[in-house]
């Protein structure tokens, strides 16, 4: 049995909702098939008040082993670095985080808030929020850049707003079944198995990206969402179009631009008016290019691809 504890800091509970919707494996499968003992979870835990406090103290003292510590939400430091704005079981949540991270074999940050601060840490960041080991792109965060859990790994980051249900449960299973050491993490400590390809990989609108045909209004079945509607699919690392949401679809397949929520800068441009759902340009050229493409190459490719585009690419077709 692997003991798992899930706590929540500055969060909207979106990742909890996501976790409870997992299918492969499901939250129940974690218990019945993979021998994971969910000690406590904000939506599932039975203990309240002193009983919960006793359990947490048993964990921090080493009396009870903690194999996996999952944290959702930001570490709230306000006001003035005390963390008093987010109290839990008799003390600031951040103090529990400090003590639990010292005893956990593996620490898993779920969702953007826990990984790099997400929306709460957006300027002016009134809650003085930060992620467990990052604040946006800056390595460090609450635990510091040198932190390693008892198993010798840094915080395993599963970003997203929310993270996909199955990314969460599959990583938890990997860790619980003793394959945590095999996890390969990228520079932002995201498991490479999920975060090496782009959101664009598998997008049903790729043919419109190739022929440079743009969607110019929401609801259009034709057209790529990158050129005008602010889609960040070509420069966001996620498997959203490989591991589909609800096993059915994805944002881009449904006509909703990718907002880049698995990247540390999310929400981009600090949510300044006019920056959401609108591709930002400088002299008519996108400010953020598809990863690995330079401006000159982009302009040449676009001119050639547009000239070669077939008639059907300009017509509404089903892309779901």
């Amino acid at each position: 049995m692997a003991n798992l504890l899930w706590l929540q800091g500055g969060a909207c509970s979106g990742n909890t909702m996501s976790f409870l919707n997992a299918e492969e494996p499901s939250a129940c499968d974690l218990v019945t098939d993979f021998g994971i003992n969910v000690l406590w979870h904000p939506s599932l835990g039975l203990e309240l008040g002193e009983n919960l406090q006793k359990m947490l103290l048993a964990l921090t003292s080493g009396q009870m082993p903690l194999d996996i510590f999952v944290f959702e939400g930001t570490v709230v430091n306000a006001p003035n670095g005390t963390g008093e704005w987010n109290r839990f079981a008799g003390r600031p949540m951040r103090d529990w985080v400090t003590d639990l991270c010292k005893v956990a074999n593996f620490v898993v940050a779920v969702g953007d808030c826990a990984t790099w601060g997400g929306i709460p840490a957006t300027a002016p960041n009134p809650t003085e929020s930060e992620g467990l080991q990052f604040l946006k792109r800056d390595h460090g965060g609450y635990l510091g850049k040198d932190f390693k859990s008892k198993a010798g790994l840094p915080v395993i980051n599963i970003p997203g707003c929310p993270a996909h249900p199955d990314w969460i449960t599959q990583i938890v299973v990997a860790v619980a079944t003793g394959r945590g050491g095999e996890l390969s993490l990228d520079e932002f400590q995201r498991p490479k198995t999920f975060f090496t390809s782009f959101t664009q990989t598998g997008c049903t609108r790729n043919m419109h990206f190739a022929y440079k045909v743009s969607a110019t209004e929401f609801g259009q079945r034709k057209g790529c969402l990158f050129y005008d509607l602010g889609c960040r699919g070509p420069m966001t690392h996620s498997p959203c179009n490989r591991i589909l949401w609800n096993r059915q679809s994805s944002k881009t397949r449904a006509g909703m631009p990718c907002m880049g929520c698995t990247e540390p800068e999310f929400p981009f441009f600090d949510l300044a008016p006019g920056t959401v759902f609108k591709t930002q340009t400088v002299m008519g050229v996108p400010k953020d290019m598809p990863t690995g493409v330079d401006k000159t190459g982009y302009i040449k490719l676009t001119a050639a691809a547009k000239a070669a585009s077939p008639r059907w690419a300009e017509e509404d077709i089903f892309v779901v």
Partner: protein
Amino acid sequence: MTTTESNQEVLEEIRSLLQGGLETEAFPRADTHDAVMAVISRLRVAGDDLKAKLVIGGFTPHPVEHGGIEQPCETCMYYLVHRRFCELPELSVPVEPEWSCRLWRI
């Protein structure tokens, strides 16, 4: 009248206006997001007034080079190659590939 015939009629009207020397606001180009939104706001007010659209959009019957980049309709993201049409909702007019406007984007 079919859509194609109607587009052709509008195209001829635009060509006639541009070649007749209609003064349009081709400069300054809408280089920043704010500048783009300012032009688009004015276009929304102009509604279906074709002449106003051409003036505010800064249409020219030839490509404009700006910042070392040639900006013809044919490479713009709003241009539909086969329909020869500008699909920017606030413009939504037939255009020729060699024309240009200050809302060009690639």
